[in-house]
């Protein structure tokens, strides 16, 4: 088939023509789209759910599970890059790999990771896979040369680590970071925006944690103590301010905030927005619901809508908290379930009173149901918009820590998910596509490496941070003299820790009439623990666990799911209590191969498998360039996402070519505009499997031809839009009328 290549020229999908249109082609970018096709992106990032938890009906979040995929494409294999949260956010905007402090959500101190000189700057991407990565100087004191423990690394990157937002600045593209609750948390019943409800909680530059005096170089905010008045936590939600800085990437880069060094003058940010102002002013870091700079205000016209909008819901609306500390927006809907955009304050859902405090995917569904219709109806979305709903990392599908309401094994699609180390490792899995091949690994970076001892035990947490797998007690105990030389004290545990000790569930109840013990504290990985207590028969164990929800507590101290388990004997047969049960004790768990007295085998124990990533979260994208109801199985991760955004906005065309420690802002590390691990050789950004309607508008057929995406001829009726067909019809009718008049006039003249 011949191809008429219209290099760089847009081809509208609706073409009126009597003759069949020849195939047409445009030069494609890596995404399969012609440059500039997508003009506006909204990223909504949610928290801590696996694909199984979100997209299989497990948590009854129908809007995200069913409705949104019906409008766009569902990426079934989209992976977080690590555990826990913060390292994922930072990787998304910079391509930087984790260190133990960012993996632990900067729980100790907001200090600088190191100076620019600690960026790996020698060589290039081909000679050093870590080229451009920040190598934590704290690693120097570690036997492994990496894996410095929590508190020693810091969380803020120095000025020479660029972000996507620096690249957008240089490319002349506008952007804004929206977050619920920053700079003021709307209170139920208020009729106007209430600024600064919790002073000094996010008063640092770019909504960083602490007071305005926070300075990662000289005066870093303590994240765990010495809180300002009215602040009870920086890393968790408060009832009057559910924002958490760990979920907002902007304040953690001095390339955006600038720096005041201990011994020198101000170091400015790498650059500032092309449309004026500064990176951290109110026009770039905004409260989501602000009437003057918030999302709804900006959606009024395409001109006021940023090219890129980063949207961080608060710790309730992002599905993080199982039971919300504050408003979950459940009062922001009419009785028929549609969003109420008018009461009591227009377009400010946090001024409503919540009717329950349920969090998790129930709360995130409320958030999405409220805001996504607004975005979809906005002028900017219709002019080449892209809505992207994704998660930072995956948690196991089974009820593990309480913010997934139901057990995976309650439901057919995920019946194979069991609470054991295998399914836990899957939750930690990495994934990306290199040179066209889906792979289950990602670069670890210089800080959170992987490695084994002679027995094959994993020594370090890796990007997955051992979040869901316990490690050998011999490596996790705290007495230094007993720690083998090949175990690194204090770090090998990562995010999980030692096998659980004995636990008393005082609220458990039961009776001789049933082998089911009601216990809202029970979670799936308690299966197999020995049970003791009044009227519990000897040698009784936790059988299958059922957690079901969501429940709808009316206070923030309620339970979001109802738990129970079957009491079984050592043969797995159901066992009835001998009388009323009120409170039980569960045995300690231990290494299956080395159980101490009173311990039962820990189902989450395995020392030999690496924890390589952040797990499969899935992702949904909606755009005129995406066919509704489609699916992609290609492996992507946060690094792929960053490369995609960089390509969509063609940041390599930007003007900032100032040489940094590694690469440049506009050229990235590879000269193609890719930062950090977004520049991995062969890394595939979202392609035509995602942007599967590359000409936009009404979906039509296309094929790939060498370096072009080719639009194939369509039937006339498909190609003719109303906007084109109606004027044509009018012209035809007008011409016919003129022809008729001329004939009549000729006839009359002849008669006279």
């Amino acid at each position, binding site marked *: 088939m011949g191809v008429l290549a219209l290099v760089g020229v847009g081809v509208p999908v609706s073409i009126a023509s009597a003759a069949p249109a020849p195939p047409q082609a445009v030069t494609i970018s890596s995404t399969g789209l012609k440059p500039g096709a997508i003009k506006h992106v909204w990223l909504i990032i949610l928290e801590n759910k696996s694909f199984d938890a979100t997209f299989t009906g497990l948590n009854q979040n*129908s809007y995200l599970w069913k409705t949104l995929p019906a409008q766009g494409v569902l990426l079934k294999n989209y992976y977080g890059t690590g555990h826990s949260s913060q390292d994922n956010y930072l990787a998304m905007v910079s391509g930087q790999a984790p260190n133990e402090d960012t993996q632990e959500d900067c729980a100790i101190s907001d200090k600088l990771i190191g100076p620019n000189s600690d960026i790996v700057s020698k060589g290039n991407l081909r000679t050093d896979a870590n080229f451009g990565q920040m190598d934590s100087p704290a690693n120097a004191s570690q036997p492994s040369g990496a894996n410095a423990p929590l508190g020693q690394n810091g969380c803020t990157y120095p000025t020479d680590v660029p972000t996507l937002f620096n690249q957008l600045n240089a490319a002349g593209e506008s952007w804004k970071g929206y977050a619920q609750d920053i700079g003021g948390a709307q209170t139920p019943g208020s009729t106007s925006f209430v600024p600064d409800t919790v002073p000094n909680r996010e008063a640092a530059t770019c909504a960083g944690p602490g007071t305005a005096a926070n300075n990662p170089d000289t005066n870093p905010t303590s994240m765990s103590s010495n809180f300002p008045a009215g602040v009870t936590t920086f890393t968790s939600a408060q009832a009057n301010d559910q924002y958490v800085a760990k979920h907002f990437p902007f304040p953690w880069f001095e390339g955006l905030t600038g720096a005041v060094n201990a011994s020198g003058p101000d170091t400015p940010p790498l650059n500032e927005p092309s449309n004026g102002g500064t990176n951290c002013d109110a026009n770039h870091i905004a409260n989501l619901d602000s009437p003057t700079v918030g999302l709804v205000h900006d959606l009024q016209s395409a001109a006021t809508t940023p090219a890129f909008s980063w949207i961080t819901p608060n710790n309730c609306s992002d599905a993080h908290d199982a039971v919300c500390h504050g408003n979950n927006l459940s009062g922001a809907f009419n009785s028929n379930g549609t969003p109420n955009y008018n009461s009591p304050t227009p377009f400010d859902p946090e001024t409503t009173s919540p009717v329950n405090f349920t969090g998790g995917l129930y709360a995130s569904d409320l958030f999405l149901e409220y805001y996504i219709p607004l975005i979809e109806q906005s002028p900017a979305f219709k002019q080449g918009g892209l809505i992207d709903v994704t998660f930072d990392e995956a948690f196991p599908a089974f009820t593990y820590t309480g913010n997934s309401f139901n057990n995976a094994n309650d439901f057919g699609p995920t019946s194979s998910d069991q609470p054991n180390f295998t399914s836990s490792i899957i939750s930690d899995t990495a994934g990306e596509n290199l040179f066209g091949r889906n792979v289950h690994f990602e670069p670890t970076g210089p800080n959170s490496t992987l490695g084994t001892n002679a027995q094959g035990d994993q020594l370090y947490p890796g990007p997955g941070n051992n979040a869901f797998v316990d490690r050998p007690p011999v490596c996790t105990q705290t007495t230094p003299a007993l720690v083998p030389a090949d175990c690194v004290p204090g770090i090998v545990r990562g995010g999980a820790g030692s096998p659980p000790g004995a636990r008393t569930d005082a609220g458990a109840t039961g009776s001789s009439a049933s082998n089911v013990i009601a216990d809202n504290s029970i979670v799936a990985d308690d299966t197999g623990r020995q049970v003791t207590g009044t009227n519990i028969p000897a040698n009784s164990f936790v059988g299958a666990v059922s957690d079901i929800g969501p429940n709808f507590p009316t206070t923030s101290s309620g339970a979001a799911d109802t738990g129970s388990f079957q009491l079984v004997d050592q043969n797995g047969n159901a066992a009835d209590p001998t009388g009323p049960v009120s409170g039980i004790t569960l045995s300690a768990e231990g290494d299956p191969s080395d159980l101490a007295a009173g311990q039962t085998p820990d189902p989450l124990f395995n020392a030999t498998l690496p924890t390589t990533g952040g797990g499969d979260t899935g992702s949904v994208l909606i755009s005129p360039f995406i066919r509704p109801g489609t699916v992609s199985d290609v492996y992507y991760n946060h690094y792929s996402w960053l490369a995609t955004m960089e390509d969509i906005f063609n940041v390599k065309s930007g003007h900032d070519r100032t040489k940094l420690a590694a690469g440049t802002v506009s050229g990235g590390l590879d000269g193609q505009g890719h930062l950090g691990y977004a520049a991995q050789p062969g890394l595939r950004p979202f392609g035509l499997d995602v942007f599967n309607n590359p000409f936009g508008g009404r979906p039509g057929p296309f094929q790939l031809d060498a370096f072009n995406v080719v639009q194939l001829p369509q039937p006339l009726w498909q190609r003719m839009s109303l906007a084109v067909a109606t004027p044509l019809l009018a012209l035809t009718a007008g011409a016919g009328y003129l022809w008729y008049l001329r004939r009549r006039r000729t006839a009359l003249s002849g008669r006279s």
Partner: protein
Amino acid sequence: MSSLVRNAPARSGPASAITAEVRVGRLAAFVMLILVVLALAGCGSAPHHPAASKAKHFGGYPSFLPRNTLNYHSDTVLTGTVQRPALTSQGDGVEVKTPAWSVLITVTGPQVPGEGLPYQAPTTTCTWVVTMSDATGSVPVSPSDFSSIDDFNHVYWPTFVAGQPQPPKILRPGMKLSFELRAVEAIGEGLMRWAPDGNNIVAKWDFVVEND
């Protein structure tokens, strides 16, 4: 066009018929013009779904979005009446309407213990959670008004799970309640049914009892 019309000589008889035709033509052209303007004004937007959420200051939804996805709640909350009981899936809400009141009711479950055990019994203990809210009048509440039926037409009468607070006998406007029901049922398909007067079923929830 207008100059042609102006220059046309005024005549009687056939000429007046021509004038009428000209008027018809003018009208046709005007209609076409209106159509063009309307088409251009509506370009790219689907007609607004009557029940879809309405956002002031914004346009309608773009035409490529599937229409049936724009009113998310329309397919999840059914209306159930004595004349036409609602049939839905467990976990979904039903707005039950009677001449005296309406209420939003959801049945979730069953919660089933014993999954994954070496031996799967043909029956198992099933627990459902019933939630009721948004009452517009005095809604009778009684666990005995719930029954379930399986594939073999066996009818079960679940009982109120002991240990939880007794629900009120009447749910009044502004009140919400949640309680659990339990029955031992055969594995397989089933329907939980609610007949608030004890006789007439108004809503049914499909479920599966599964213990493997």
